[in-house]
């Protein structure tokens, strides 16, 4: 079966259970088991090749440029681990089927389980370290889901987050390490990397890579100082603990160290870091385990301790160490998984895992008792059980390992570790099963042996324990095969035999010492416990939560004050940044003398300048009086317009002055709702700060502008073309207008759309406001200032009646002339709008709009559409969008005049401008309508002719 399929099967299977909950628990478990079995069979189908020393390889390109490819390979090491994962997986599935209660969502559970299983298989089969990384992180994610499976338990949520945080961190470190490693080796394919031991170990980056990779391994395998997360993961359902946290996931780190052994091991860095960490973990784990009252916690720490043992063995860097490690991985998987299952059974039957409240169970649960005892004794290192064999190999290896301090230190510590290891095993047995017989009622639930479904799997494992333990020669070739895979071509597989009796070697004495010492410790358990509880210990959970909480509050302290919605500070920061970056650009460049002469200025510009400055400063110093600052900005606009005329830009002047009028009307409409004065709020310090920023910014811009004004462009401006072809190609002598409607008509098109959108937006917001909570407030608003009488003064009304038509005509005139003389659609549009606004101001909003025939939405839409369709029109003569054409026609009595498509486009502009301006102003004044003000039915308030009968005949 293809390796792809072996990896894929669990993932494919994962899709099913989640969606077939309704089909029942049996079906869920069945499907899950079937997929696992299929994968397992697929794996076994490669057994002949692998066991005969061959390697199965397959691959597919995924991200070749990066060297991230879907390459898999199956060698004895991978085969061994994949076998563990899938084999034990099947047992776990059966066990879980009976372990989970009815109100657990079994489909969800098995989905997660299969996800995890697939990820694990992926890790051990990856031939590409980036691919391996992906599966690596997937195991973290799926275990996050599995640990948090019981969502209602806070312990579950916290345990899951802790596991994710720690292993996630390790994973990220691993990413760094792997990338560096791949960068050194020039490839991310394991098969390549494993060939480059010298290259990698000589690289200056070796240590960095090593440390990062080991971070990944240690966090995953709960090595000191990252051992603390594992016990908290025990909040997960027992099958999860048994599967992830004893047999498989925690072995991923071990696996990776074994995988990388040929290229990473053998250096002092490796030796000191790995062996030390392993040794400490082993001893520490063992000691803590002894004093845990929770069955699963005890087992968890024993796992920590044994993982430390294996790590330590790999750390030695010797072939024998590697072999011992491999063998112990196998043994530990069998007895530890059996133990977890037994613990699960006890928990399941007695509804407690608290050792002190247990005891005497051997009478009530004989089968469980047998299974658990054998497994425990194996872990304790009792002969004829597999634990004994690998542990003795460990002791032998340690006996001639020199790390630091006196030569006897490491062996002593190793023995000490195994002593406590034996002790907690004995405690597990005696405090749970031995002791006086008790009534079933004395337990939280009446305990009895479970059905075969639950004791079958551990029973099977225990059989393995005994078989391997008493007939090691059965597995020896396999162990050596795997060891060979670990060693690669870095070392030779040792020819030592795995047997029970090596004669009276030091390791034997150390074993005996451990077992005997273990019994003594158990005897002295109570005083020791008291001493243990007396000694202060750091509580991992508390520390972790504290760290996270600290991180969060640090993060908040970092971001919240910075993002507290103080726009004025945001703006200040932005402006300062711009100035700084601009200054940096300037100061790193070269500047040479001016090339253009300065034109001298007459009285007009100087006077205009004076008034502009006066008005601007006035706005700064008098800005609290809002009406006054509006008047002053009117002056600024006026002066800028005059300046535009002076500097040969009549079109700009006209646009500026008309826009000015409309803007002021708009701001006055808004100011009607806003406070008329701005209170003094900012401190003098702050005002000074703002002043400094403002002055620096102003000076910078001024100097920059001066710099350009006194120099020529690097090449003649493209506008020479516009001047040259405006008449020829655009049919207009007002080059500015031709640029607007022809050369750069696309800009103008976008521009009128901006105007249109602005109006739509304003209208939409008005609607929202008038249909929202604000409505009531608006309707019953009382004016914030006393108002004079005479809403619609007679003189204004009469004047408007005469001047409005004139204004419209002038607008029309400006529109027509625009192409050849100053003017155009924009200005015409603004002029006409102002005319209509005049009418609004004279006779009031209601009176005017009631008589209005044209919906402004329509006007805007029509304008934008006309402009757009004019552009599209040119497609029919196979020309690009907005291509203009023009001709001259003569209809008596009129003299010859020009017809240009540009004029049509300009019409669109005109309409859009009128519509947009009017819709915006209309929206504003709709806000101002108040409930008790009735629509005036007369154009003017005071009209003597109304109440004078003699006048009535003319009246309407």
């Amino acid at each position, binding site marked *: 079966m293809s390796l792809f399929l072996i990896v894929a099967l669990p993932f494919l299977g994962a899709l099913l259970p989640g969606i077939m909950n309704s089909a029942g628990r049996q079906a869920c478990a069945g499907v899950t088991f079937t997929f696992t079995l299929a994968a397992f069979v697929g794996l076994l189908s490669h057994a002949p090749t692998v066991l005969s020393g061959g390697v199965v390889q397959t691959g597919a390109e995924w991200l070749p440029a990066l060297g991230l490819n879907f390459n898999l390979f199956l060698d004895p090491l991978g085969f061994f681990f994949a076998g563990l994962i899938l084999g034990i997986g099947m047992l776990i599935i059966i066990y879980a089927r009976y372990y989970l209660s009815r109100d657990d969502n079994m489909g969800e559970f098995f989905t997660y389980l299969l996800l995890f299983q697939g990820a694990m298989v992926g890790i051990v089969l990856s031939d590409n370290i980036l691919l391996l990384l992906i599966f690596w992180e997937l195991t973290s994610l799926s275990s996050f889901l599995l640990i948090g499976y019981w969502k209602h338990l806070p312990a579950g949520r916290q345990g899951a987050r802790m596991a994710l945080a720690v292993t996630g961190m390790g994973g990220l470190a691993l990413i760094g390490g792997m990338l560096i490693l791949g960068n050194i080796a020039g490839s991310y394919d394991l098969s390549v990397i494993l060939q480059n031991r010298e290259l990698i170990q000589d690289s200056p980056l070796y240590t960095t890579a090593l440390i990062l990779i080991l971070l990944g391994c240690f966090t995953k395998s709960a090595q000191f100082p990252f051992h603390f997360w594992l016990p908290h993961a025990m909040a997960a359902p027992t099958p999860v603990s048994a599967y992830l946290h004893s047999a498989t996931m925690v072995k991923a780190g071990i696996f990776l160290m074994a995988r990388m052994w040929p290229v990473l091991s053998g250096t002092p860095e490796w030796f000191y870091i790995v062996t030390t960490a392993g040794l400490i973990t082993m001893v520490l784990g063992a000691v803590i385990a002894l004093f845990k009252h929770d069955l699963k916690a005890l087992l968890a720490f024993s796992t920590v301790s044994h993982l430390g043992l294996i790590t330590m063995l790999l750390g030695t860097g010797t072939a024998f160490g590697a072999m011992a490690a491999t063998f112990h991985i196998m043994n530990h998987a069998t007895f530890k998984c059996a133990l977890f299952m037994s613990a699960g059974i006890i928990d399941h039957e007695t509804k407690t895992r608290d050792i002190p409240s247990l005891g005497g169970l051997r009478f009530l649960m004989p089968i469980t008792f047998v299974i658990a005892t054998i497994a425990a004794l194996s872990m304790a290192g009792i002969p004829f059980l597999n634990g004994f064999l690998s542990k003795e190999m460990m002791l032998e290896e340690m006996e001639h390992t020199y790390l630091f301090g006196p030569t006897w230190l490491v062996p002593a510590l190793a023995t000490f570790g195994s002593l406590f290891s034996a002790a907690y095993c004995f405690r597990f047995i005696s405090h749970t099963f031995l002791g006086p017989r008790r009534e079933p009622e004395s337990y939280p639930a009446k305990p009895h042996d479970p059905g075969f479904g639950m004791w079958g799997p551990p029973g099977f494992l225990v059989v393995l324990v005994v078989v391997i333990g008493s007939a090691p020669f059965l597995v020896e070739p396999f162990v050596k095969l795997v060891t060979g895979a670990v060693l690669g071509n870095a070392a030779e597989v040792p020819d030592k035999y795995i047997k029970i009796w090596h004669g009276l070697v030091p390791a034997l004495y150390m074993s005996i010492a451990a077992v005997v010492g273990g019994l003594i410790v158990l005897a002295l358990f109570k005083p020791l416990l008291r001493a243990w509880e007396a000694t202060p210990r750091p509580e991992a959970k508390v520390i972790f939560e504290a760290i996270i909480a600290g991180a969060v509050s640090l993060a908040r302290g970092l971001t919240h004050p910075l993002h507290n919605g103080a726009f004025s500070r945001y703006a200040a920061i932005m402006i300062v940044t711009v100035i700084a970056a601009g200054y940096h650009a300037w100061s790193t460049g070269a500047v040479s003398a001016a090339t253009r002469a300065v034109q001298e200025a007459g009285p007009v510009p100087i006077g205009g300048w004076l008034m502009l400055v006066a008005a601007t400063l006035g706005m700064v110093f008098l800005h609290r009086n809002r009406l006054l600052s509006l008047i002053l900005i009117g002056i600024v606009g006026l002066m800028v317009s005059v300046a535009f005329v002076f500097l040969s830009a009549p079109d700009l002047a006209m646009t500026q002055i008309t826009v000015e009028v409309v803007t002021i009307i708009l701001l006055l409409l808004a100011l009607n709702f806003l406070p008329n004065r701005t209170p003094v709020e900012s401190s003098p310090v702050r005002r000074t700060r703002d002043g400094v920023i403002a002055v620096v910014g102003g000076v910078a811009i001024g100097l920059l502008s001066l710099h350009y004004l006194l120099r020529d462009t690097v090449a003649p401006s493209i506008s020479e073309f516009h001047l040259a072809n405006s008449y020829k190609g655009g049919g207009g002598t007002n080059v500015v207008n031709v640029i607007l409607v022809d050369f750069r008509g696309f800009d103008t098109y976008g521009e009128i759309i901006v105007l249109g959108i602005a109006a739509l937006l304003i209208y939409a917001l008005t609607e929202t406001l008038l249909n929202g909570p604000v409505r009531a407030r608006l309707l019953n608003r009382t004016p914030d200032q006393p108002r004079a009488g005479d809403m619609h003064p007679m003189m*204004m009304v009469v004047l408007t009646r005469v001047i409005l038509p004139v204004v419209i005509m002038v607008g029309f005139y400006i529109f027509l002339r625009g192409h050849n003389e100053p003017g155009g659609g924009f200005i015409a549009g603004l002029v006409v709008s102002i005319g209509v606004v005049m009418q609004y101001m004279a006779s009031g909003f209601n009176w005017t709009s009631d008589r209005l025939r044209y919906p402004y939405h329509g006007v805007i839409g029509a304008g934008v559409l006309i402009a757009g369709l004019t552009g599209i029109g040119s497609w029919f003569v196979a020309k690009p969008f907005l291509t203009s054409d023009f001709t001259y026609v003569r209809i008596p009595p009129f003299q010859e005049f020009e017809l240009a498509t540009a004029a049509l486009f300009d019409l669109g502009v005109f309409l859009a401008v009128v519509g947009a301006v009017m819709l915006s102003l209309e929206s504003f004044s709709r806000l101002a309508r108040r409930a008790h003000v009735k629509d005036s039915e007369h154009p003017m308030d005071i009209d003597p002719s109304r109440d004078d009968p003699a006048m009535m005949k003319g009246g309407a």
Partner: protein
Amino acid sequence: MMTVIGMYVTAVALIVGAIFVSVGAIGLIKFNDSLTRMHAPTKVGTVGVGALLLASIIHSWTTGEGSIHQTLIMAFLFVTAPISANFIAKVNIHQRSCETPPAPPQDETWATLDAPEEDRELTEPAS
């Protein structure tokens, strides 16, 4: 010949306009009462600008292209000036920045002082 005369006339018109414009501004600065101030600029100034426009007309004829449309500007100024003046006066009356006018003979009050009821109790504005 006509050109020369035209130039002289232009110059004269310019000077006259300048004088009137300056008078308008002087009045605006000099007088100490809001309403009194209005007199100078609203019309002397207007006439001044009118004179300048006249100058530009004459000048255009002397230079030959001959234009009359400046008269439109004059017209606009003369039509709109009274309205501006009227509104500014109303503002002054409303804000009490001048002596309150005597009551009209027939009607009870002036339009500006004829404030809506709901505003009557609002405090007097600070001018």
